[in-house]
């Protein structure tokens, strides 16, 4: 695999950093990442990872864009209200960088569809907003030995870590063995 002249020009700032360089940029181009959710976290994730030149970005979400999303979900615009979030974010990513392959999954993740999906990607990035999905994603990442970049938000606080149990690290269940009682989860 090689970079086209357009790509070399586009990624100049990366290529001149010794920590990235041509070798790193080619790694980006060969890499695939799956984003869970195209909402508050998924928007900046998709836009920046797309712009950075990740070869294949998968995005899972089953929701449609709502007016009340626009305050934080910056991949979507007024014209996207009512459209599937995955379609809207795909357009935004490709408008910035047409070199990226964007694979959309307009579906709810379940235990029946998650494993074959995870097997297709090098890294999973969790931008989900509920405990059910977080445990499902954690377990599926563990079983498929895929590194999982975790992020969550509550009010003014955020948490970020990387779960990579096949590299000695903990998993989400080491951190939270059980979800909070259902009637205490803020809706």
């Amino acid at each position: 695999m090689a970079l086209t002249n357009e790509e070399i020009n586009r990624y100049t700032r990366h290529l001149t950093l010794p920590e990235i360089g041509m070798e790193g940029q080619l790694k980006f181009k060969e890499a695939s990442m799956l984003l869970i959710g195209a909402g508050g976290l998924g928007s900046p994730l998709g836009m920046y990872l797309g712009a950075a030149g990740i070869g294949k970005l998968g995005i899972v979400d089953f929701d449609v864009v709502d007016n009340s999303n626009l305050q934080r979900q910056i991949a979507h615009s007024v014209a996207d209200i009512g459209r599937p979030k995955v379609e809207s974010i795909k357009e935004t990513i490709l408008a910035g960088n047409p070199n990226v392959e964007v694979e959309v999954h307009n579906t709810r993740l379940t235990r029946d569809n998650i494993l074959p999906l995870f097997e297709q990607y090098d890294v999973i990035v969790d931008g989900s907003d509920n405990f059910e999905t977080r445990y499902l994603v954690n377990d599926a990442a563990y079983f498929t030995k895929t590194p999982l970049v975790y992020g969550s938000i509550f009010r003014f606080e955020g948490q970020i870590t990387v779960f990579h149990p096949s590299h000695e690290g903990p998993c989400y269940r080491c951190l939270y063995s059980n979800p909070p009682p259902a009637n205490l989860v803020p809706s």
Partner: protein
Amino acid sequence: MLPGIVGLIQATEALKLILEKGKNLVGRLILFDAMKMNFKNVKLERDPNCDLCGIQPTITELIDYKAFCEIPMPSAEKEDDDFDEESYSIEPEELANILNAGKEIALVDVREQSEWDICYIENAQLMPLSEFDEHISSLNRDEEIYLYCYKGTRSMKALKQLHEEGFTKLKSLTGGIDRWAEEIDSDMPRY
């Protein structure tokens, strides 16, 4: 703002995993507090008793995650069983008729101040559930009390509390102010 900050830290980590350069967040948790503008680094260790990745795992395949996350609080479960919520519920239209008739009733909003500031039903009084205990003494037991919240869950909770205190003339607005805005007052903002 916050999702942007958290999402971009995730994006940076994802790129580093591909590059295999630098020090990644495996075994470390970043706690970011936007109000204090403070980043904390907490060491995370693998739990040898973890149900999934521990020494003797009990989860060896994907499970039913809906059931796993729906474990209710043990104490709340029982008392809910014998309470007939339906007979203490009122539909938006019924409440609108009562208010329009100008009947003497108490209309109680149990949402929080920040929600009240967005919208409220006229003639309601604010008694946030978070400080509901302090307000109970100001309510008249002989008066009909209509409670509402955002969707109807918190007002039923407050209703049950009043019921336990011996109040009897109680109703909770089904669907809360959100349904009220949808069906009765189209000028009311929805959030």
